[in-house]
């Protein structure tokens, strides 16, 4: 199953001008735990999707109380929010590569 079929919210936004953060939120425990325990959300996987190095992924956080997963990555060096080459001022449409993640 694709990750977006399990999530209620899958969004991206700036966390300050130099980082993009992704929130994956669920409306029930079962799909949340399924994604959390599947092992598909790794720094290596995220790095591959966004063309960065695994060690540059700032963090992947699982918050059981909120049934939510947060992933934060740096923006490309010449694409901070508002930079001449910036393509997404608020970072609001950067979640698309995550949609294809397959959850066993």
């Amino acid at each position, binding site marked *: 199953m694709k990750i977006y079929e399990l999530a209620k919210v899958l969004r991206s936004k700036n*966390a300050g001008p130099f980082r993009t953060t992704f929130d994956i939120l669920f409306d029930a425990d079962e799909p949340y735990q399924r994604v959390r325990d599947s092992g598909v959300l790794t720094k290596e996987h995220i790095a591959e999707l966004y063309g960065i190095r695994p060690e540059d992924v700032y963090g992947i956080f699982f918050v059981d109380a909120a049934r939510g997963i947060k992933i934060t990555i740096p923006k490309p060096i010449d694409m901070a929010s508002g930079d001449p080459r910036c393509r997404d001022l608020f970072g609001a449409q950067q979640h698309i590569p995550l949609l294809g993640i397959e959850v066993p």
Partner: protein
Amino acid sequence: MKILSTATFGFRIGGDSWERGLSWEPDVIVAQGTSSDGGPTYLGSDAPYAGFMAIKEDLRTIIVSAKKKGIPFILSSGSPAGGNQELERALAAVDEIAKEEDIKLRIAVIPGELDKEYLKQKIRAGAKVRRLIDTDRLPEYLTEEDVDRSKRIVAQMGPEPIMKALDLDVDGVITGRALDVGLYMALPLKKGFDKALAAHLAKTIECSGLISEPQSFEPVFGILRRDHFLVRPTNASAKCTVVSVASHAFYERPDPSREENPGGILDISRAKYEQYDDQTVKVSGSRWIPAPYTLKVEGVSQVGYRTISICGIRDERMISCIDWFLEQARKYTEAKLHPLKPNQDYDLIFRVYGKNGVLGDAEPVKETKSHELGLIIDAVAPEEKVADMACTAAVDFVAHMDYPGRLTTAANVAFTYSPREHRLGPIYVYNIWHLLELDDPCEPFDIQVREFPIRK
């Protein structure tokens, strides 16, 4: 303590949900109105987000309601970057409101711009001004040269100057750039509430109706008690749920359970969220880990000027070879601008919507199936005339040059506007995104008591 939370961004607050919030007898109305979300050029050019009329009406609603209730208001304004010019624009609106409503106001005003000389003097005296995040884009420690390069610098004042201002027998406080949670923490801290809970409540209600279901721009209400707090929307048909409230801790933050604040870290990793009634969520268990006091400083430097042209491409023959064609346009432009060097004297950017305009290389769809593409020819250069020249050269090529299978020898693209090129003016980047260590959190801020209507 009861807090009615809204914003001064011009969402046009008011109506039933506003009256309902007021009927719950708040002790204070708090509203945020500054932001760095819109990017550096707002700060560089001191430009407003949007229509100022709407901002004025929100200021009117808040100030008149607070005055009637006899409760203070705490607002940040200067939409959105929080520079002094935008703050003064808001204060001019307050003056008009005072006259139109026939009310007298005594307001503590705290501008959010940081004086360059002050910052340089701090650096000379050995103050550490460390970058907030590790990126090669920012110097690790701020230098006097970085300060000089900045067009404008603001600081996110914490709750402390506002607490001080509240002692000045005023109707309310209006700040320039400020830390959103600081606005909300000021009165609770003055009244001796737990810092962790005050900060967590602040973090929860600072974006008003974004914590409710359905999400809205309407106000929310917070009730702070000794060992927990409650939050609920003022809209009767909305509700706060454990998920809607807990998930807001994710919003626009790098880490959902820890947040660095001036003087400490808010740790909500052990926070407990409970459904209190249909509309209301109860929160407890937040912790505060003290740290040295730091003030977040934001500054921008100008990198150049931008000139763009917008057009549409409908012919599938051109769409099928768009990458190749734009590469030819780039080569043509470089030849025309020689000896100026690309990526040094100017930057030419093609934004191809319908292909990869949003995601660039991270776009998973490699072959576009669009029957129509939107193209922005975007030139940036330290000199405006060079940006103009690069944009025009690329426009000339795109409009008139050949590609395989071309039928359209009169012109290739549909320009949206006359003139074809648009000067977007100076553009900026963040060059300061640093933390200034301070012994006295109020030191950089000038608290001014002003009376409205202004006597001429």
